C-alpha cells in the first residue's frame, strides 16, 4: 500500500485546526495537510450564527460563520492542502495516520501531528437521565445544527436542562423562531454560561432560569410530553417535596462538553482527568513526541479567540519540532492546581520561554488574585474582580521569573 508523507498533518478543520495550519505555514513550513470530516471548513462555528466572536482577535463582534470565513480565506490564500469529507480512522505513536477519504483508504506518515478535533456534547445517556426515551430530546448543539444549518423546526414548547452558553444561546434562538421556551433548569447554584448570555438570551425574553434544579424524569412514549423537575440540596440530592411536572415537547441538553480524544488514546497520548484532554508541555506537545494538541480537544474553551491564539502557538511549536528535529525541550517543571483551582494547563514547562497558564476556578469568587508560586515565592499573579468556573483565566508568566523553579503552584487568594 502506498503511504503519503507530509511534514505536518492537522486533524480537524475548525477554528483550532485552521489557526494552527495558517500559523505553521507563516512560520515557514510548506508541506502541510489538514484533514476535515465535514464538507466544509470552519467546524462548529458554521452553526454558531449569533454574534460576539472575535472581540479580542478582530476588535469587532462577528458571527461564527464570519469569524470562520476570515480564517478559511487566509487558509486558501496560503494554498494549504486540505482533504475534506475525510475521516481519520486511527493514529499511532509513530504518527502514522489511516484515513477513509473520498478516494478510499489512505495511509499518511506525518512528521508532526496537531490534534484539533474539538469536543462533543454530553447526551441524555451520558448524564443517566431517567424515564422513557421519546423523540424530542436533543443536545443543544444538535438542535442548533438542525435549526441553523438544515432549516428544520424541532419543537414548540421547549425546556432546557443546563445553563451552558449553547443552551442559553438556543433558548434565544428558539424563541426568535417562534417556539416557547418554558424554562431553563440548572443543577448548580450558579449559571454555567457567561453572565452576558443570561442577560441577553434569557432576561431579554423573560425566560425563567431555575438554579439548583434539575430534570429527574422524562415522560412520553413516542414524543416527549413533559419532564419532572425538582430542586436539589447542597449535595445535589433531589428534594422530594419540590417535584413538579413541566409539560413540553422538546428538551434541550446543555450539560457540558467532552473533548473528542478517541484518536489521541489510540496513539497512546496521556489524558488529564480534570480536562479530559491531553497532558501537554508549554509547546503543547503531548506525552507522545511529535503529537501536539490545541483547542477544545485539549480543554474546553469559552472563547474562540483563545482557541485561535492557542492554536497559532501550537502551529509554531510543530514547525520547530519538524525543522529542528527537537525531541523535547526538557519540560521538567510541573505546574499544579492548588486552592480553588480546578485545572491548569500546560501541566509542565521548560522554564526557558515565556508562557501563558490557562486555568479554571472551582467556584465563583470575588476580588481574587490568581497566584503562581515557586516554593512560596510569587512568580506571577493577576488580580481578577469576578472569578467564575465558566470563564477561563489566562495568566502570563515570564521565563526569567522561573529559571530556578522546581514546581509551580497555582492558587486563588481572596
Amino acid at each position, binding site marked *: 500500500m502506498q503511504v503519503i508523507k507530509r511534514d505536518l498533518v492537522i486533524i480537524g478543520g475548525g477554528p483550532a485546526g485552521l489557526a494552527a495550519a495558517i500559523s505553521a505555514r507563516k512560520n515557514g513550513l510548506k508541506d502541510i495537510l489538514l484533514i476535515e470530516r465535514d464538507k466544509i471548513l470552519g467546524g462548529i462555528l458554521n452553526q454558531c450564527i449569533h454574534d460576539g466572536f472575535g472581540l479580542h482577535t478582530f476588535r469587532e463582534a462577528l458571527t461564527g*460563520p464570519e469569524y470562520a*470565513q476570515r480564517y478559511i480565506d487566509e487558509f486558501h490564500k496560503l494554498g494549504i492542502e486540505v482533504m475534506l469529507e475525510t475521516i481519520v480512522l486511527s493514529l499511532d505513536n509513530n504518527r502514522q495516520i489511516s484515513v477513509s477519504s473520498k478516494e478510499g483508504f489512505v495511509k499518511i506518515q506525518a512528521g508532526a501531528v496537531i490534534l484539533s478535533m474539538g469536543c462533543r456534547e454530553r447526551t441524555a445517556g451520558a448524564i443517566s437521565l431517567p424515564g422513557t426515551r421519546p423523540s424530542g430530546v436533543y443536545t443543544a448543539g444538535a438542535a442548533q445544527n438542525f435549526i*441553523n*444549518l438544515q*432549516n428544520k423546526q424541532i419543537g414548540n414548547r421547549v425546556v432546557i436542562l443546563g445553563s451552558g452558553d449553547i443552551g442559553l444561546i438556543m433558548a434565544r434562538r428558539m424563541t426568535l423562531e417562534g417556539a416557547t421556551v418554558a424554562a431553563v433548569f440548572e443543577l448548580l447554584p450558579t449559571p454555567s454560561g457567561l453572565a*452576558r448570555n443570561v442577560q441577553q438570551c434569557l432576561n431579554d425574553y423573560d425566560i425563567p432560569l431555575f438554579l439548583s434544579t434539575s430534570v429527574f424524569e422524562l415522560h412520553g412514549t413516542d414524543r416527549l410530553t413533559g419532564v419532572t423537575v425538582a430542586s436539589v440540596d447542597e449535595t445535589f440530592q433531589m428534594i422530594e417535596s419540590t417535584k413538579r411536572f413541566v409539560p413540553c415537547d422538546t428538551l434541550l441538553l446543555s450539560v457540558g462538553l467532552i473533548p473528542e480524544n478517541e484518536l489521541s488514546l489510540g496513539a497512546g497520548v496521556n489524558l488529564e482527568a480534570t480536562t479530559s484532554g491531553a497532558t501537554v508541555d508549554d509547546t503543547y506537545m503531548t506525552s507522545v513526541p511529535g503529537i501536539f494538541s490545541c483547542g477544545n480537544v485539549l480543554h474546553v474553551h469559552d472563547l474562540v479567540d483563545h482557541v485561535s491564539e492557542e492554536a497559532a502557538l501550537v502551529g509554531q511549536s510543530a514547525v520547530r519540532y519538524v525543522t529542528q528535529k527537537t525531541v523535547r525541550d526538557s519540560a521538567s517543571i510541573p505546574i499544579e492546581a492548588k486552592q480553588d483551582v480546578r485545572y491548569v494547563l500546560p501541566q509542565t514547562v521548560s522554564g526557558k520561554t515565556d508562557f501563558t497558564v490557562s486555568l479554571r476556578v472551582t467556584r465563583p469568587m470575588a476580588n481574587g488574585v490568581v497566584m503562581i508560586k515557586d516554593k512560596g515565592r510569587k512568580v506571577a499573579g493577576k488580580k481578577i474582580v469576578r472569578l467564575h468556573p465558566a470563564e477561563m483565566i489566562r495568566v502570563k508568566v515570564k521565563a526569567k521569573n522561573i529559571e530556578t523553579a522546581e514546581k509551580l503552584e497555582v492558587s486563588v487568594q481572596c
Partner: protein
Amino acid sequence: MLKKELVCIVCPNGCQVEALIEETPALKVLEVSGCTCDKGIAWVEQEIVNPMRTIASSIVVEQGDFELVSVRTDTAIPLGKIFEVMDIIQHKRVKAPVTIGDRLIENPAGVPCHIIATRNVGVQP
C-alpha cells in the same frame, strides 16, 4: 432616583454594573459604577433609555449549495422591535449566490438597520 443593577453585554467580561437613574421629568442616567471600559458606560446609558440588541437569524436560499444563509442586523436595533424584524426575516427568500456582507433586507419594519449575510452561499452545483 432609582438604582438599577445590570449585566453589561458588550463583551464576555459581563461586568456587573449599577446605574443611578432619574425617572422624572425624563429617564436619565445620573451615574454608572462597575463598568471597566468606556464602551460599557455608553451601553448602560443606552440600555436604560432604550435597550438595543444585534440579532442573528437565517434566511432561506433558493438554488444554493446551503439551504440557509445566516444573517444579522448590521447595527443594534431596539429590543422591542426584534419580533417585527424576525417576522420579515422569516418570510424572506433570496437566490444564490450570496456573499458575506450582502444587504439582503433594507430597513426591515422601518427600523434603521439592514439585514446582512454572514455566510457565503454558492449556487447549487
